Each structure stands twice: as structure tokens, then as C-alpha cells.
């Protein structure tokens, strides 16, 4: 059996991404590997309540200049596209928070005066809760770059499992890093003008990456039908609709997952999982 990697995403924040991801994991009838890749604001642990037993720092290589070897030629500052180095008459300044760790400066320094230091940018914590192997990334406060943490988390994905990934909101680099390599992307949206706007943008990202996808409409009401029209016009299957419900919102506030507040939802989430497995199995047979 191969992995099935499902990423739960949404252009707009707060549409219920984490709710859907944790409910899917709790409804699955098998072992699940759960990755909370929303490393700026990881929240899934609040619902899944794992016992976190391991912790590992993620760090980046940054330049360290040996001033005895340096001739202050200025080459490194010229190379660095991110303005992370400045060369003065008798000193080289480094700005670690701007460094992308591209390695240009230490690879190309003509005096071989640059070596590397490590800069910690976040943590990866892991543990388990019932059938779920849980991993979450945490970006250190004050640090700008989350993709390296996401990359490191995805390296922990094991073979032969069902993998559920809670993605960060938005449509830029952290989201792309998270979605890449997924078998299916589940987009969670809400039936408002904002929800529709952001669904359309998120869909563009999924299409650029060429990953099969489907939609869950959360907090559904009857007043706004444009999301469904959009899905129909774009051949996007709506896999589930969760009606607006204050009870779910109140449970959510206390860290109680929707499938515990409303156990009947479990069956619906299972159907979504089965649908996705069917799609990904189909993809494999038709592509290979």
C-alpha cells in the first residue's frame, strides 16, 4: 500500500481548516499520521490532545565570517540577494534574520573566510493520541521564514500510512511547501463573498501544483449560493457541507472537536475519506 497524503487548506484563515483536519483524523478507521504545518499558529493539538513526547529544534545554516581570513573585498555582500551581509572597511556585518541560507556567500567567498553557524528558527514536536501519530511545527516568534520547518516536518512522513496535513492559510510559499507532494487537497471554505474570493485564489495554487482537489463548505446557510455555483463551474466536487451551528462553534471554543459535539458527523467525514482514497487510487492506476 502506498501513502495517501491529504492536505487541508484554505485561502482564507478561520474557515474551519483545523476542525476538518482533526475530524478527518479522528474519524479514520486506521492509523493516521497528522502534521500540523500551520507553524505560525499551530492549533490542532488543542483538539487532538496528543501526548507530546519528542521535541527537536529546526535550524538554518547562516554565515560566520572569520575576520582573520577576510580581505573585505565585498564579494559576499554583492552575492547575497537578501541583503543579509554588509561589508565595511574592516568588518563584515551579518543580519541572520534576513538570511535565506542559500549558501552563496560561503561557497563563493574567494578567501574561504566564511563558515557556517546554526540559527534556530523553530521546533518540531511530536507524540501520539489514540490512532494518531501527531507532529506539529512551531515557528519561533520573531522569525519570518516558515518553509524550512515545513520541509523538515514533511521529511518525517512514513511509508504506508494515511497522512493528514493541516496547512497554513494563504497562498504563498508556506502553503506551496505544504501542498507539494500531496495526493489530494481538500479546500475548506465558507459561503460568503470573502470565502468565495479566497477559495478561487487557493484553487489557483492547487491547479498550478496540479493536485486533485475537493471542497468542504463550512458554516453553510441558504443565503449564499455562489460558492456552490463556482464549484460546479470549475468541476470541483463539494464533498461535504457542514451547516452553520452555534453548538459546534461553542464546542470549538472549548477545544472540543466537532465530531465529539456531533458524533453523527463522523460518518460524513468517513465518506469524505473514502471518496479521496478512491480518487487517489484512480489517479495511480490511470497515470502508471
Amino acid at each position, binding site marked *: 500500500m502506498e501513502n495517501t497524503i491529504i492536505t487541508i487548506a484554505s*485561502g*482564507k*484563515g*478561520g*474557515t474551519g481548516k*483545523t476542525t476538518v483536519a482533526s475530524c478527518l483524523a479522528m474519524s479514520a478507521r486506521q492509523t493516521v499520521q497528522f502534521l500540523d504545518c500551520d507553524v*505560525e*499558529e499551530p*492549533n490542532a493539538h*488543542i483538539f487532538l490532545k496528543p501526548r507530546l513526547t519528542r521535541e527537536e529544534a529546526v535550524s538554518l545554516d547562516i554565515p560566520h565570517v572569520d575576520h582573520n581570513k577576510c580581505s573585505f573585498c565585498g564579494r559576499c555582500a554583492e*552575492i547575497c*540577494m*537578501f541583503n543579509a551581509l554588509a561589508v565595511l572597511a574592516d568588518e563584515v556585518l551579518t543580519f541572520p534574520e534576513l538570511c*535565506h*541560507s*542559500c*549558501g*552563496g556567500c560561503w*561557497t*563563493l567567498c574567494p578567501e574561504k573566510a566564511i563558515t557556517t553557524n546554526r540559527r534556530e528558527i523553530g521546533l518540531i514536536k511530536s507524540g501520539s493520541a489514540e490512532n494518531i501519530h501527531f507532529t506539529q511545527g512551531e*515557528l519561533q*516568534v*520573531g522569525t*519570518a*521564514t*516558515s518553509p524550512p520547518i515545513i520541509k523538515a516536518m514533511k521529511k518525517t512522513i512514513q511509508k504506508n500510512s494515511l497522512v493528514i496535513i493541516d496547512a*497554513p*492559510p*494563504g*497562498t*504563498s*510559499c*508556506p*502553503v*506551496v511547501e505544504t501542498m507539494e507532494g500531496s495526493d489530494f487537497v481538500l479546500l475548506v471554505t465558507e*459561503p*460568503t*463573498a*470573502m470565502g468565495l*474570493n*479566497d477559495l478561487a*485564489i*487557493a484553487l*489557483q*495554487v492547487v*491547479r*498550478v*501544483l496540479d493536485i486533485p482537489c475537493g471542497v468542504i463548505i463550512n*458554516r453553510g*446557510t441558504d*443565503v*449564499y449560493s455562489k460558492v456552490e455555483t463556482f464549484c460546479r463551474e470549475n468541476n470541483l466536487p463539494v464533498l461535504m457541507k457542514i451547516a*452553520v451551528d*452555534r453548538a459546534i*462553534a*461553542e464546542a*470549538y*471554543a*472549548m*477545544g472540543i472537536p466537532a465530531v465529539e459535539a456531533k458524533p453523527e458527523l463522523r460518518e460524513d467525514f468517513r465518506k469524505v475519506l473514502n471518496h479521496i482514497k478512491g480518487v487517489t487510487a484512480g489517479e495511480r492506476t490511470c497515470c502508471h
Partner: protein
Amino acid sequence: MKELVVISGKGGTGKTSIVASFASLLTNKVMVDCDVDAANLHLLLSPKIEERHQFYSLPKAMINREKCNGCGLCEDTCRFEAIKESTVNPLGCEGCAVCSRICPENAIEMVDTVAGEWFKSNTTYGPLVHARLGAAQENSGKLVTMVRSQAAKTAKKLGYDYIITDGPPGIGCPVIASIGGASLSLIITEPSLSGIHDLERTIDLLEFFGVPAMVCVNRWDICPENTEHIKEICRKRKIPFAGKIAYDNMVMLAASRGKSVVEMNSRIIDEIIKVWEKVFEVLCPNMKL
């Protein structure tokens, strides 16, 4: 000039609806949407676009097949794993240009990439500067910096005293670019455990960068206990509490119609106005609204 940046840490706390309401309560200001990934403010303000500009990210690598001898040096050098079999994956390329510098055949060129667009618009409530980052693009922090500086320019030109910014979610690069040097940041949170968790990280971030903070709880009645807990956090951390706003279905309805809450005759308007007055007091201690 005073700049108020409204952020939330966690997405979906109702930040944009509240910003749009504030916009209707103050005259001489420019509005900015810094959520360049998923901009929404324009949906509530029906802007007329007056200027559009392209936004370029760092140039990305492109390999000239005719010159490439297939040595694979670039693939080994790229620390972003963006090169496979002498082809650059533009989604992975961060534009560091290291490959183009080490290529022995000079086969790699760095080419300009349009990563998005930014706009200057007019709305019934005044000028709005907003942007749209292309799908799957990088450099959202740079685009944020761009729209913020354009808003400051516009305000200066018009002789306006205020900038109101709708910030992005999270605590990463676009948020850091949104808050640097702001006069005040209002955090809109919600009374859920997730909201509280993200609120604390957001306060840490603002403290880290030395930006004064205030907190407002939206949909407070979903969980009064957690609302009290948030007030307690504010007291402990010495952050002024701006007030609380009740849950109202009208907000969803307004959002689904693309209108701001204050236009919809909702029962929470008075609460929003009270929050605004408190915020203004902190923003401009010696002035009357």
C-alpha cells in the same frame, strides 16, 4: 501620521469586517490591505481602481538548454532543491542566483518574474491601497512593504493623518512586514482556546518588535469564560483591553452580500463604535473624535 494595524494571529476572527466598520468612522485616513495572499477588504468597500502596478519578485533562474552541458553542479548547489535534471522548478526557486554564479557554462540566466499586482483605489470611505500576490508566489513580505509605503505616500500627499491597515494572519514574514514601525496594533481575537493560543503568540510578536498592542474580543458571547480569560491575560501583560463585540449572524450576512457591518443596521454597531473610541483614545491620547 498615525498608523493603526489590525491583526489577529488566527484567521477568521472577523478582523476585516471590523476594519471596514472603522473605515466608516474616520474621515482623513488611507486604508491598506496587507493580507496580500488573500485580500478581502476590497470586497467590503467596492473600490474603483485608479492605478494598477506590477510587482516583481526576485528574478528566478532559467537554464539555457543550448549552453547547458548537464554537469549537474547547479543541482548539487541549490539549497532549495529547486533544480532537477537541469530544469528549474520556479515554485521552489528563491532567486538566490547561486546556481547562475557557479555554472561553468554560464548557462543560467536570472529572469524577472511578475509576482503580483498592487492597486490604488478610491472607495466611499476614502483611498485604499491593496494588492494581489499571484498564486503560489513568494515575497509576500516585500509586497506588504510596498503597499504600506505607497499608503504612507498617498496619505502625505492628501494631508491625511491616519492609516488603517488590515493585516495578514499568522506571525511570519507578511505580518512582520505589516507591523514594523506602526503606531498601534489592535489584535482581534475570539474566545476559543485556539484564539487564546494564537493571541499569546501575537502579543509576543508585537512585544518582540516593540509595537504597542490592544486587544478586542469578537463574538465574545460564544464563550464568556474564555472572554474573561482573555481579559485576565491582558491585565497580566499590561495590554489595554479595547472591548468586546457580540456574535451576530448579520455579520455573516453582511459579508455574504459584500457590505460592511455598519451599513447593515446590526445590533453590534454600538459595540464596534465603543471599541473604536477606546482605540482612538490610545492612538491619539490628546484628541477628541
